[in-house]
């Protein structure tokens, strides 16, 4: 077991907490066992008795936003079935935070400040690339308006991500095709795009952010479509969480970020696999 990873994790989580507390964020604890997990096409929850383990704390954070908590964060153990590899583990630590009355570019500034604060020799040069421009340059097509999920995922992994690794440092892919919006809102005036970004550092996907969708009807439509697609794929279909739909209706405009703490620690240690930072796996 490498003590380095254990001690660096302690230093990292302390500095993360200090960073958010200095900015008046409240650390929250939300349920790990859920009656209804968040329904996403390619994320599968682990069963825990008659409950499920959370795949993300997102649904409860939005309920807190709806209840008037404007700046919140959580260091949240999350669980995703079947995800195992050098950069994946079925149990992992997510840093998730939300700010009311902010959009995805506001939380990008906060993300830059966070990385600079917790990682003294981290990336100083940040590039921002639109998803359409990155795909045109590295894969030769524009997925906005031409979305093909299989082609998008395969080209992202085989062509775009290796190019981001070659660029090195911090690269932000922003403005995803609306079909890949997940829980983000459409970009005003550009209905083919969603206000979502993903941060890559040295080619490793580290964080995902949205201007949050606050339209409960659109949220319900997305869940219904997702349920139909999951059923067609033979995957478990979870019921619609009405308390969450209600939270989407009541919450203020907000933006949120989910950042993989294990991957951040891995990058800070100069490693290319999670093994040294997850000593029990």
């Amino acid at each position, binding site marked *: 077991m490498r003590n380095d990873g254990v001690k660096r994790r302690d230093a990292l989580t302390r500095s993360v907490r200090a960073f958010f507390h200095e900015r008046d964020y409240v650390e929250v604890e939300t349920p790990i066992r859920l009656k209804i997990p968040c329904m996403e096409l390619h994320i599968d929850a682990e069963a825990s008795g008659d409950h499920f383990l959370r795949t993300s704390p997102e649904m409860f954070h939005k309920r807190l936003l709806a209840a008037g908590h404007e700046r919140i964060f959580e260091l949240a153990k999350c669980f995703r079935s079947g995800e195992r590899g050098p950069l994946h583990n079925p149990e992992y630590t997510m840093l998730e935070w939300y700010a009311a009355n902010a959009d995805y570019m506001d939380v990008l500034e906060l993300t830059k400040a966070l990385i600079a604060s917790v990682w003294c020799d981290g990336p100083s040069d940040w590039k921002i690339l639109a998803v359409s421009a990155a795909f045109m340059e590295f894969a030769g097509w524009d997925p906005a308006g031409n979305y093909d999920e299989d082609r998008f995922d395969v080209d992202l992994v085989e062509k775009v991500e290796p190019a981001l690794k070659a660029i090195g440092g911090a690269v932000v892919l922003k403005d995803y095709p609306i079909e890949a919006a997940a829980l983000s809102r459409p970009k005003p005036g550009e209905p083919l795009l969603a206000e979502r970004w993903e941060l890559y550092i040295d080619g490793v996907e580290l964080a995902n952010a949205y201007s949050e969708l606050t339209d409960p009807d659109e949220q319900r439509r997305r869940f219904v479509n997702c349920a139909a697609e999951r059923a067609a*794929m033979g995957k478990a279909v979870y019921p619609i969480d009405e308390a969450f739909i209600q939270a989407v209706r009541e919450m203020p405009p907000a933006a949120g970020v989910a950042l993989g703490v294990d991957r951040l620690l891995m990058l800070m240690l100069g490693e290319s696999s999670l093994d040294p930072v997850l000593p029990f796996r």
Partner: protein
Amino acid sequence: MYSASDLKKGLKIEIDGDPCMITNFEFSKPGKGQALYRCKIKNLVTGNTFDKTYRSVEKVNRCALISRDYTFSYIDGDNYVFSDNDTYEEAILNKELLGDLKYFIVDDMQVEILFHNERALDITLPNFVEMTIAETEPGARGDTATNVMKPAKLENGYEINVPIFINEGDVVRIDTRTGTYSDRVSKG
């Protein structure tokens, strides 16, 4: 059939009728996207390697490989003929497939042949074989050092490095996995 999630390094699969082996394997899952299984694959017939990415919904054919025990019978032109120890059926392997192993095949040798759909893919010889040195410079008398080597030829023309004390007519043991000298069995 395998599911894509069953794939792993070392697994043998069948692609377009050819037996293949996964030589490198990477689980990949872009944010919010589907699981992708990125493989480097070696075609076990042609030896070519290539990259292939499987999506989680894809199925992959299993590869039925069978290995059976044979006894070496005779050489027929470019072909080496072996006889099945149980059925006496003949298996014919071309010298191209055998490569340098052909130099170490001796009468009545017991071998294992790996088949895919009745096509011979690979042969495994006993780890050691005894062969006679046909040609080498005379060694210095009394020099038993094993770290000084000199070239030598077997009766079938295969060239090998042997210690300086080995002479023509000596019988030596050769490691068939590496094609190198192991030790001396008897003096010529």
